[in-house]
């Protein structure tokens, strides 16, 4: 039991160190008091739009196109979120309605 606990703790420490290392690395290299290099500054300003697109794809990566129940719940819920957001500009409303819609889809409609 003691060995299992040590192994678990070391694994957690490694995963934590790598994750936090990735968060701190760019700040360590380009941060501090110096002026940020122009290219990095520019990249930082255009990245948010691309990153948000990447995150959307990342969240939907396990969708399967082979069966209707594999993609329809996500597709319908995503469409609802986009429509509501474009119409009302209220994130709480879009996220709440989209999530409830998705849950109904997978639990009742496509169960």
């Amino acid at each position, binding site marked *: 039991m003691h060995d299992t606990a040590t192994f*678990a703790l070391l694994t957690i420490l490694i995963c934590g160190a790598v994750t936090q290392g990735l968060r701190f690395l760019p700040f360590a290299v380009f941060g501090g008091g110096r002026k940020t290099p122009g290219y*990095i500054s520019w990249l930082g300003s255009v990245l948010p739009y691309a990153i948000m697109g990447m995150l959307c794809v990342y969240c939907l990566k396990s969708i399967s196109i082979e069966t209707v129940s594999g993609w329809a719940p996500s597709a319908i819920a995503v469409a609802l979120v986009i429509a509501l957001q474009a119409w009302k500009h209220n994130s709480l409303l879009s996220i709440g309605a*989209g999530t409830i819609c998705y*849950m109904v889809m997978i639990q009742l409609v496509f169960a």
Partner: protein
Amino acid sequence: MKETIRKAFVDSIPIMAGYIFIGIGFGIIMEEKDMGIWWVIAMSVLIYSGAMQFVTINLITGGASFIASAVTALMVSCRHLFYAISMIDGYKGAGLKKPYLIYALTDETYSIVCRDQLPEGMNRHTYCFLLSMFNQSYWIAGCIIGSLAGTVITFNTEGIDFAMTALFVSIFTEQWMETKDKSSALIGVGVSLICLIVFGAQSFLIPTMIGITLCLTVLDKIRGLRKTAKPEPPEGGEGDA
């Protein structure tokens, strides 16, 4: 100050919903694997990344080697490099708050702090700091609830993790509508989709990040060349160069 706290809290509400429920999911799985509340807290503090914490459970129960764990963590968490690069200027001069701001830069927190719309006179770093703390407290609260009371929850929460997808989609939509230049957003979605198809769901993130950086850089170079070659049209002079 009161205004800053209010705004940080209101902006954190969409994340509250997602974090608490996904945290509960995490706590329940940990409990099923016989890892109690202290393990749950240790992971939420030492790793603090939803996706990585779920993967770490598998690494521990599967008895993965330390090298394998490190490589897996690198693959799963590499996207944090991007968030950090994009916040270097935003978090400049944050002083003592800075280490925590960087430590707490999760997907969800990033998606809020990368937006650049604060009322006049509000301290950006204080706002981001409060928002980051609210978010982590939701996450830890959710994980603890799941660990302690997971078996008591009877209503079917399946699919509630869609809240995070919905959060990103709503922010993407908002950004899409408020920016004229859609190229960065299109590159983000396009490169991700191509890499997902080519490399598969498990390993598409690193190629995607390289691809996005290349595409953005090349596009900027092309535009720069066009501008120097043909300076007359100030806006929208495309397609005839």
